């Protein structure tokens, strides 16, 4: 199965790292400091 293949586990680890939750601060550091404002989600927004 997939986990037996060491290369797959490396890929999984990398993808887990690239998919780790981001803090607000991390996002602030990644995005331009000015010129943009956060758009509040609509009241009825239900994440998939």
């Amino acid at each position, binding site marked *: 199965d997939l986990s037996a293949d060491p290369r*797959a586990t490396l890929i999984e680890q990398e993808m887990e790292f*690239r998919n780790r939750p981001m803090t607000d601060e991390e996002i602030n550091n990644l995005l331009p400091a000015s010129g*943009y404002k956060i*758009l509040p989600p*609509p009241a009825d927004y239900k994440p998939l």
Partner: protein
Amino acid sequence: MSTTHHRLPPEVNRILYVRNLPFKVTSSEMYEIFGKYGSIRQIRVGSSNDTRGTAFVVYEDIYDAKSAVDSLSGFNVGGRYIVVLYYQ
């Protein structure tokens, strides 16, 4: 939302840069268009003269961001064809 384990190219990431949006695009329009591909972590819209019409859409999951980019470039919003890129 696929959580397959194949590796994604390095430029693929969860932050998308969107251009050519109508200036008065609303929150529900943005969440409607981009929310179809997965849960959204945050959206920022351009609020100054040189950033108006552009936005950043941050997804929770990198595979959702990829499906949004693959499907949305050239999507028509309010008569304009939006450009959706990975933000580097």
